């Protein structure tokens, strides 16, 4: 581990992403567990618990896919890549990173199209049970013609879609750069390379 002082921006970003992944996991468990405790110990029901956990889940995964893309962790089939000669392998890597870029750009477009109405024409739509923190009420002035939000407006949790896919697109542009530069020959998790040692 590098010292705090001489870390690059990328390393800071890595650490921030890893911490976020861990914290979201922890919060999801704690909230769900708290709901069980509330029900049996305090005879109460945390109405917002399930929906909040679901949104945390969505944020965890949608933002996490770009982290996994950066680290080439996504699962795939590597039999053909492993037997292909170097030149063919390079072409395959270029094709597959192109396909990943196409996917992330198409879905980024879809996500934006889906999200945009929620922040404009349908900005009045609220979540079912998640309360809104008072400090976010300025949003009601900006987007809801001054009418106070009673619950968290939907465009906030749904923002995971465009944000996550924008990050994914960004990461695949970086990966594409590495593939073209010849620094890497695959964009999926490798099984063979790790375990080739025999004793």
């Amino acid at each position: 581990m590098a010292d705090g002082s001489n870390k690059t921006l990328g390393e800071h970003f890595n650490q921030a992403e890893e911490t976020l992944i861990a914290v979201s996991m922890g919060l999801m468990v704690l909230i769900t567990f708290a709901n069980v405790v509330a029900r049996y110990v305090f005879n109460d029901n945390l109405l917002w618990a399930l929906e909040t956990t679901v949104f945390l889940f969505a944020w965890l995964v949608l933002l996490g896919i770009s982290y996994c893309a950066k680290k080439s962790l996504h699962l795939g089939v590597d039999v053909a890549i492993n037997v292909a000669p170097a030149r063919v392998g390079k072409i395959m890597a270029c094709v597959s990173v192109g396909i990943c870029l196409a996917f992330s750009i198409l879905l980024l477009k879809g996500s934006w199209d889906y999200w945009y109405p929620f922040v404009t024409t349908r900005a009045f739509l609220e979540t079912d049970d998640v309360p809104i923190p008072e400090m976010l009420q300025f949003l009601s002035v900006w987007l809801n013609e001054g009418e106070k939000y009673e619950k968290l407006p939907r465009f906030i949790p749904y923002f995971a879609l465009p944000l996550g896919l924008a990050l994914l697109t960004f990461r695949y542009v970086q990966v594409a750069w590495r593939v073209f530069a010849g620094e890497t020959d695959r964009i999926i998790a490798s099984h063979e390379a790790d375990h080739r040692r025999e004793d």
Partner: protein
Amino acid sequence: MRPITGGKIKPVEVLVLFALVIILLFVGVPIAIALGLSSVLFLLVYSDGSLSSIAQTLFSAFHGHYTLLAIPFFILASTFMSTGGVARRIIRFAIATVGHVRGGLAIASVLACMMFAALSGSSPATVVAVGSIVIAGMREVGYSREFAAGVICNAGTLGILIPPSIVMVVYAAATDVSVGRMFLAGVVPGLIAGLMLMAGIYIAARWKNLPAQPWAGWGEIFAAGRDAIWGLLLIVIILGGIYGGIFTPTEAAAVSSVYAFLIANFVYRDMGPFSAENRQTGNILFRVVSTLWHPDTKKALFEAGKLTILLMFIIANALILKHVLTEERIPQMITEIMLDVGFGPVLFLVVVNLILLIGGQFMEPSGLLVIVAPLIFPIAIELGIDPIHLGIIMVVNMEIGMITPPVGLNLFVTAGVAHMSVLRVVKAALPFVGIMFVFLILVTYVPSISTWLPTLLMGPEIITN
């Protein structure tokens, strides 16, 4: 753009869709993106669906399927339970119980895998937790590396058959059957599969004259059992909690994560501020609270989060593909074709097994289930096959898919823990794969193996679809 084509898609166009998925997979595209992009292209070319509806489907993987929320929690519980100590205690207990039989260490390894499977919902996790300890142990007393690896690779697949099971959660979410019922249904088949593997090992041990461990006595059984009981209580919490109506499967999963966290930190002390290597002094209360942000806890949370992301990305994209298929009424089309051909239940199940076995060679189990389950579910109902029985058949197929190349997750993981090449593991696993095949045929044509226990405890299945 063409007009709405509901029901007008030709079979050949569906084949193009699946061919595209397979081609993309072999080029080296991640499984999730191969599924997602093929569906998007299919939708844009053959139908008039919008990109924004795809994004909505992607989000609904989380927002529309509350059952899937159990997955991260089961992964997390399994991560806390995999810290080493739990597996070691279970193995000690297994060796004390059956180690003195001929081939005892291998038989005990199967028993340990079965017990660990009851704490963990995943096969690779079971292989890693048990395999990394027993393979070295078996080598020491004279087993060949191949034999040891073959045993673990196969016994590890019980992780998805013995509850809890991530693959069963996915099946339940895809077909709207009850998670609790699926979990119960896995118990008897899991025990039978384990016993069949043990019997196979015993015969091989007689034939190859493999060693037996000395009988350690009842004292050791009780001592080891008392030590292992904290881990094994997890399955009691999960099953008892769900059937007792105390909590939902998702809550059961969350409670078991918290339980596993407490056991790992405070009872077994394999991680956190109370473990041997991190022993600190200072205020006891502060140390208790500090387990929440201890680096070991963070690492476990992060690892579980990472696995969740990888798995859910595949499942979410498989849901997009499923969305496209159902939108185009393709399950109905396939049902009609199959019924027109005059398929009976027996032949239908042969076809299901073939599709799943072939699919299982290339796909990650959860993703494959999400796609295949809605395709064959309506036909199965039409033919009077019990949905729970169908689910168990699918899970057993997934097990075999995990130990056959090219995409057998268990093969890769075993290669890692046994320090062997994947090809050697494939060969080593082969004799036991034969046993699993016999087991698959048994499960396929004797439905009561799967349905007896859930029907006994929860009453007969009511088919809602």
